[in-house]
């Protein structure tokens, strides 16, 4: 049952060193504030799961939070490489990083399988791709009706799932609008769940009969963190800071510049 608390308390309560953690949000609603709090609390040895590592995992990897990354597209969208991710993969800095690499379709199916209590996801995928040769978690089964080969990947069931959303009501139900990505699936697939929200409202806007709403009983902690998705965006609240995504290329290219940025913008900030 969801409990309102500070972001600092929520991360302290829910995330432990060594956990598998999924901070999701498909371009939209990326929980940056929560990621920064994980960095501040010095959590390490995490298995980080995310379809698109984006700047948030580039920062967490550069700060040494991760021992493993499960992902399907590791770039700075529209800009180029994630330099901290590449530095970790190619040169082991600040720590070696094991990777488990999938396609988007596989990860989307695997989150859905996790939400659905399945041990694995089955789909028409990975046909002819070398990804199946380098990832032992990609297997194939035979359809018992047609004989067709179908891809299988293990369901994703993170120890902790973290998402950002627009609104919580006072009961602790959460409303997500716009590009909803895999927000619902990661919440339902995870053992422990934190949602950061822009605001708490008396009631959700009308006409939400079939909206994406997560009941309070699927969530452990809610932290009110306005702007918690910046520099990504929150539909209806603020826009994506595209200029920062472009600027990140230069900031992250060099280890020292990166460190200074983190010192100033993450360690130097009071937790929400």
């Amino acid at each position, binding site marked *: 049952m969801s409990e309102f608390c500070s972001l600092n308390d929520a991360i302290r309560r829910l995330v432990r060193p060594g956990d598998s953690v999924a901070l999701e949000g*498909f*371009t*939209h609603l990326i929980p940056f504030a929560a990621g920064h709090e994980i960095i501040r609390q010095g959590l390490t040895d995490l298995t980080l799961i995310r*379809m*698109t590592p984006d700047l948030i995992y580039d920062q967490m990897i550069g700060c040494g939070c991760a021992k493993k990354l499960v*992902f*399907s*597209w*590791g*770039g700075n*969208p*529209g*800009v180029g*490489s994630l330099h901290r*991710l*590449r530095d970790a*993969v*190619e040169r082991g800095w600040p720590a070696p990083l094991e990777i488990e*690499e*999938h*396609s*988007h*379709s*596989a990860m*989307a*199916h695997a*989150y*859905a399988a996790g939400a659905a209590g399945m041990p694995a996801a089955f*789909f*028409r*995928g*990975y*046909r*002819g*791709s*070398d*990804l199946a040769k*380098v990832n032992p978690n990609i297997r194939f089964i035979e359809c018992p009706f047609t004989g*067709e*080969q179908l891809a299988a990947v293990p369901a994703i069931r993170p120890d902790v799932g973290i998402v950002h959303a627009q609104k919580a009501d006072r009961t602790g139900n959460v409303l997500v609008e*716009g*590009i*909803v*990505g*895999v*927000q*619902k*699936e990661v919440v339902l697939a995870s053992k422990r769940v934190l949602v950061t929200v822009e605001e708490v409202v008396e009631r959700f806007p009308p006409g939400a009969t079939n909206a*994406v709403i997560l009941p309070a009983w699927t969530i452990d902690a809610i932290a009110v963190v306005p702007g918690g998705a910046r520099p990504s*965006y929150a*539909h209806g609240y603020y*826009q*994506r800071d*595209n*200029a920062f*995504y*472009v600027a990140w290329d230069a900031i992250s290219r060099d280890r020292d510049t990166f460190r200074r940025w983190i010192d100033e913008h993450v360690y130097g900030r009071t937790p929400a």
Partner: protein
Amino acid sequence: MDYTSNEMMTVAAARALTSDDVCFVGIGLPSAACNLARLTHAPGIRLVYESGTLETKPDVLPLSIGDGELCETALVTVSVPEMFQYWLQGERITVGFLGGAQVDRYGNLNSTVIGDYRSPKVRLPGSGGATEIATGCRRIYIVMKQSPRTFVERLSFLTSLGHGPTGRERRELGVRTQGPTLIVTDLCIMKPDPETNEFRVTSIHPGVTRGQIIEATGWPIRFADDVDETPPPTAEELAALRDLNARTAKAHGTDGAVG
């Protein structure tokens, strides 16, 4: 009229689209081509981005696949699992645009690594949606700048299936869709030989020589019996594309056009 080779490539890709198409759009040049088609000769085209936006009509090109404007201008936005399950895997998409760091003569693509997977020379972003876009869309159009480093004899890694390592693997693998039917580069247009599925040059952009194309291809490229000259961009096409890029540059607060 003056135009860049990038503009020629974008216009040539846009022309391959019709108002009947449902396109799975990637970021960058495909996004420019699809939106150019929508703003010119194919107003009925339906653009789908993997973030879940169906029938989006952005006024500026998105910087990322999940920009807010894609959702705000869409008919509806579905979840990412639904996008991959019902819309892509359900074979609802007529055309998927793909690019990559490397392509081979059978339209197989690499967007994962250059060099060895375990100790890469260059680590690329990876598949993203590409692996299943390559098999789930009815047809694939590939758009890439041509050079011996990108049009290669042998891929470092096969991320997304084209016609397979020998051009004949799609059916064997139980894939029902057509695969790559078109490659558009900054130099020319290629289509697969109907017998072998090897891509051959079918149209050369104005001012480009066969020698340039041969030099820019890492395999011994072949030319179709009848090779056309690609009509240059029209004034309307160029104006629409430049307006789109100018609006985009302004909106994103970047110096130059993205894509």
